[in-house]
């Protein structure tokens, strides 16, 4: 497999490189906006778990428009630092901290945000129940900080895994928003359980006081378990979004897309930022991993195929899309 094999497998990965997006996930937000008009009238936007910054990039290009409006304020929050983007203020902070919420409000000069987006995905373990739980906690943390910074009537968009307990998340989101939709942009693969919740019109319950110290934990089935194995589970409407004439993320395209333009390999816009396996890979490359002197021998080819070439855009790890 050459370096072009990923271009071949994933059309949006290729397009992202061609259009200068930091990750293919940029298309997901663009297609969500096409359907929901998320950016209309937005002058203050927050991107949670922003790194490597493709959604901030979309916000920067779309909200500020051609005239590079100074009215528009975009805040990107992540634990990691990322390369700067025009018109985007970075906060290196933890979304579970009240100080982070305060810092966001400060940037908006005391005003609340019109839109909060979150494309964060946690470090996955490969065990579906654990991964779904952790993703749900990330989403609830994002929701929690959102309740501190979002103006009533504002919108919230976040990545969600459509797993076994997704209905519990829906019911929790519906407490805070009058319209909750599960949306699947066409750039997100059919085979992946990844989807996005588009929560419109923020309207918290009466008397609700945002509180960072207690995470929103209570997220379980009723005692009668009707939701678990009964017919009346809370399911929010599903909407596929993006133009049907757009590229198909599941289709495998030839390298030569257009007879008029010759295929050229482009390097990724941004390599992954310090992945956890970095040192282990370096040791492996130099044959420095510890091993038994005799029996285990040299590196096993079949193992090297196993997950070592993790996708460079770590922000868009989508379980179930591996080929």
């Amino acid at each position, binding site marked *: 497999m050459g370096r072009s094999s990923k271009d071949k497998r994933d059309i949006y990965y290729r397009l992202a490189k061609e259009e200068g997006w930091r990750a293919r996930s940029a298309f997901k937000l663009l297609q969500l906006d096409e359907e929901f008009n998320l950016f209309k009238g937005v002058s203050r936007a927050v991107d949670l778990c922003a790194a490597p910054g493709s959604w901030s990039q979309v916000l920067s290009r779309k909200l500020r428009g051609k005239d590079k409006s100074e009215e528009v304020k975009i805040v990107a929050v992540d634990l990691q630092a990322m390369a700067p983007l025009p018109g985007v203020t970075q906060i290196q902070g933890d979304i579970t901290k009240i100080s982070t919420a305060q810092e966001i409000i400060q940037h908006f000069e005391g005003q609340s945000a019109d839109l909060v987006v979150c494309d964060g995905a946690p470090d996955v373990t490969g065990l579906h*129940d654990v991964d779904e739980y952790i993703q749900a906690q990330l989403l609830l943390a994002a929701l929690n900080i959102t309740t501190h910074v979002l103006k009533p009537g504002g919108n919230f968009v976040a990545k969600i895994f459509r797993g076994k307990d997704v209905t519990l998340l829906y019911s929790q989101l519906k407490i805070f928003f009058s319209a909750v939709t599960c949306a699947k942009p066409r750039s997100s693969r059919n085979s992946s359980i990844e989807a996005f919740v588009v929560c419109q019109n923020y309207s918290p319950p009466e008397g609700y006081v945002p509180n960072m110290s207690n995470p929103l934990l209570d997220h379980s089935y009723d005692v009668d378990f009707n939701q678990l194995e009964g017919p009346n589970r809370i399911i929010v409407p*599903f909407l*596929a979004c993006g133009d049907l004439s757009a590229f198909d993320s599941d289709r495998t395209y030839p390298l030569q897309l257009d007879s008029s333009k010759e295929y050229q390999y482009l390097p990724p816009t941004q390599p992954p930022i310090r992945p956890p*396996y970095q040192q282990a890979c370096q040791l492996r490359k130099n044959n420095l991993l510890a091993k038994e002197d005799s029996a285990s*021998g040299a590196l096993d080819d079949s193992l090297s195929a196993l997950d070592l070439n993790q996708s460079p855009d770590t922000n868009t790890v989508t379980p179930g899309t591996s080929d």
Partner: protein
Amino acid sequence: MACPVESAVMKSTVLVAPVTALEFLGEDFLLTGEGPVLSVYSLQASPKEYASLNVLHNYRIHGIRPSRKHQFGERPFNNLISSESSVLANNKEDIIVFGGKGVRLVSFNTGGRCLKLIGPVLELQDWILDIHWLKKQPHPLLGISLAHNAVLLLDAESGNVLSFYSCVETCLLYSALMIGPNWDSLVLVGGTVFNQLVLWRPTGTKPDGKSQVERRLLGHTGVIFSLCYLQKSGWLASASDDRSVRLWSVGTLGGDAGCGEESPTCLRVLYGHQARVFCVRLASNRVFSAGEDGACLLWEWGGEGKVGHTFRGHRSGGVRALAVSEESIGCKEGWMATGGADGGVRIWRVAEEKKDCEETQTETQLDLGFKGQGCPKVVRLVGEGELNTILVCTDQGEVYLSQGDSWDVIWQGGAEFQSYCVMEITSIQVQNSDCIVWVCAVGNLNGGVQVFLVGQPGVGVLLRAGEGKVHSVLWAKGLFEGSWSWCLLASGSEGLVYRWTIKVTEDESGLHMQEETLLPFLLPPCAKRWLTAAVTLPKRKGLYLCGDRRGSLLLYNDTEENVRRNEGRTDLEKKETENKQSDHGSPLSPISTLYGVHGKQGVTSVCEYQDLCYSTGRDGSVRILTVEESVLKVRRVQRACRGMEWIEKVLFLGSDGPEVREKLLNEGIEKRTIDQGSASIAETRFVMVGFHSVHFIIWDPHRQEKLLSVACGGGHRSWAYKHPIYADTDPRAHTLRQGTLVFIKHGAVMASHSLASTETDVNGLTVKEGLHGRGISCVCHLGSLTKTGQFSELWEVFVTGGEDTTVGVLAISAKSGNVKVLSVLTDHISNVRALAAIRRRETNEKGGDDDTTSVCSLVFSAGGRAQLQCYRLLIRLDEQQGQPVCQVTQIAGHRLDEQWERKRNRHKTVKMDPETRYMSMSVVHNGTECVLLAMGCSDGAVRLFSVTESSSSVDMLWECFYHQRCVLSVATYKLEDSLDRKLLLLFSATTDGCISVWDLTAVLNSKASVSWQGPSAPFFSIPVHQSGVNALTISPRREMRQMEENVISLASGGDDGQLSLMHIKIDQKKQENGGVSLQLLAHWSVPLAHSSPLTGLCLLSPTLLVTTSPDQRLCLWSMNSDGLHPLKVLFSHTADAAGLWAWFGQEGGAWVVVCGQGLQLFQLTERKMDELHETVNRNIKEGERKKVMFPHHVSRTKH
């Protein structure tokens, strides 16, 4: 057949899921957690399951905590322990089982060997990471740590929370561990989402009611998946996403010692895993770690942390659970267990720690100190078991025998044998005696072959194999004139193979050797024209299977009739051979030839085992062969692991090495020739022996793992393998202990281990066999097997295709819960995404359709890299044991980009074609000659293939890129009615939610076998779903068909979670060549049938539909004239569900199998029988859960 309708009851009967929890109970029992099911295995003699219980309902077990363990925690290395384990005989053991938000108390009676639930599932409000027993009496008190860095004290009986503390740092934890004798002095270690380890005490300093972090351990660059603490040494170990294991010196934790040392240090950073490390366990002076790479590493403390041993026992997907028994923790000989993502469980015997480990571990390859003239060229092992000695032939034409440390010349060939000789040995039974002698044959450059006894080199004969170079000498054992004797084959010049029978007799004067000349064999003409392998086929008198250097497999017939026929050949032929004729008589030509099948590098070995022939070659493959009416046929080709291109031979598992096997063969042969009718049809489990670059490898193709690896320097060397001695293991346990390799390297004779050493490594005992380690993408039910007229087990037979690129053949017994992997097919190079099967009548079968003891199917598998494979499978119940066995015949394989693969300069150019994946497959036409298959392809095409079984060919007949989108699913509808009307429709569905219909009727009349001018567009198309259509199924509507109308039900499931049902009327114009038109009669849909993509859909009957989805619900729907109605919903433990299959069982009721991250079998029965049971069940179910409220946790979401 009975059709379960509204009253249907669904229940899970068999589950294979990742093993996520393991724990030992003393040295006698192993507890496993697989999905919600807790099982107990006994470890005595041959491990077996004792009890199994669904404990956690919809939660997966992540931890098992026997109460006894907790006492060990306090005084871990007390002498009392060993005596206590023997007292275990009849004891009750309280066990806490937890996972997700659920906790349950279970008791295990070690005498009665049964598991009992105590109380309901307690459901907490947060995810549980660790549970710590604090008190057993009077109420079980548990310390529980939660994912949001909080701990609580729970009365497990009442479900009351007695105390709750949370850390000031409320971040998410990936792992946690509680240490300490009582609640007031507990220490919690948490692995945070920020890759740190934090230590805190619930009762520690609390300014605002929250506990402060007292210690912080930094260093990991990934999240921490697992923690372990050992009080004795004060070590804390952590396993991480960053692929390292870190060992920290933290001192004593808990009790008066608080959070231990003021400034803990990192003692070791252990990098050795190839992927993420999921589990870590500590023993004194040792660390065990296991992870995604499927390996468990045993780290010795010495040498800055070196890997003392690697245990590999799981297929891709890795190890998910690890347990170490108390004895092993004390570094005595004890158990270690690994549980895989493949659902398999292995136990390993861990040897006692060696005192002087550094000394003995450094040099594992031994130089056997060969001291003789010249260079050793050939090495062989003589003798059996303990008496093994080494025989070496040098380039000086001398043969040496090792005697302890010394090497004695036993034979000198003189001038004729110098500079070149070949050698082969065999053991021969002395005539009329039980005595076995070893015989050595050495061939030279001038046609001379010296045969002599190894024990008495003076006894021997000198034979002549023509005038030229003797390329090879080989021994074959066979029946000659009704008695067993050995045939020596010497390959001379011009393709002549000279043959003799060699007998050893004994009289008063000692041993004598007698030879008798046989007719030579003639090899087919080619450049390297000599024999490399030969075997006689004892069940077929006079037949020899041979392999040559050109890669050809040859069958010779030595019977008298054939010899006569040979002599009576035409004069022309006779003349040709006359020149070559010597006193040996006119040579025999092969009666069947597979020219060059093993490639230009040649055949390396041939053998016969249980009536099947096996050949190996330097093309990296093993061929399994049959001889049908004197014609040699390849039944199956099996490749070794990637890069292992040189296979030397196969070894059969469950046998005790060749010598012992031969003895058994002697006894068994008469018996076997009698009951020829019940010939064994299954391939015996075998392992491949060969070279992988510079390594000598033993590869188990069934388990897909290396059993032995020795860095010998690679191929082109002489080697001998000493079989391990089986002392106590059951040969049927299919385990192979590591033996010893003797080989020649740089002019020295080397051994991989000391030959005298009796120590062998056990390759783990399989407690439970695993399936595909990664996701199972598709499943197909082939049929059911049961012994007729007997009350016996019913086996359901399946094929599965997985992301691990293999196709598995499984048999599942619902009654016993047994899951048997019958065969693993490894021909695919990428994901296997689709399967299809056609029932075939067995060719030479006694029984008819009602034969329930065998299933014969033609199976097609398709997937990534546009690859299609076809097999004929015959699954039958073994006559003796009633166990299912499987025979695989490879029919054909095809790849779209085969031409590209053949291109020579392909590494230099960029392949512009798309990397097409086959997404789904449907059998379009099941003809007598060929089968037509429709394929939905990721490059936007719909393709039609014809597979011809007789010629083993696959041809693409038609392709159409109409869709320009990924085609996710295809289905066909075929009608041939009494009026001789024919109709063939293909339904294709794509990522835009459209379903299109193609008229392929014309292909039924088409004679074309290579290409066919099919339609360029579908004639009907309808948008049904918002996005991709994952599943499609069609059934004719019976009640409508009586009215001379063609009405079908078309059900589809989409990525949008929608289930849709259409009734479509098909109008076929009366006139010839008339087109077809469709009329949509009705269309119903359930928009949110599932809360995640609908991935599995199957019509059980025209009125009953089953669906599944990654939301882990299995739904049953009824289809009436007024649409779809939900009947039942059941929670499934198969995560990432990707496929489903449903069928009616033989004993009434129906079955559903769901595949994904594992496999689950469900049974559907009618309520009537179970009604009472069901209502009782429901009541229990409600009483089986209890919600645990956190005392001061204020839900802010009240409304």
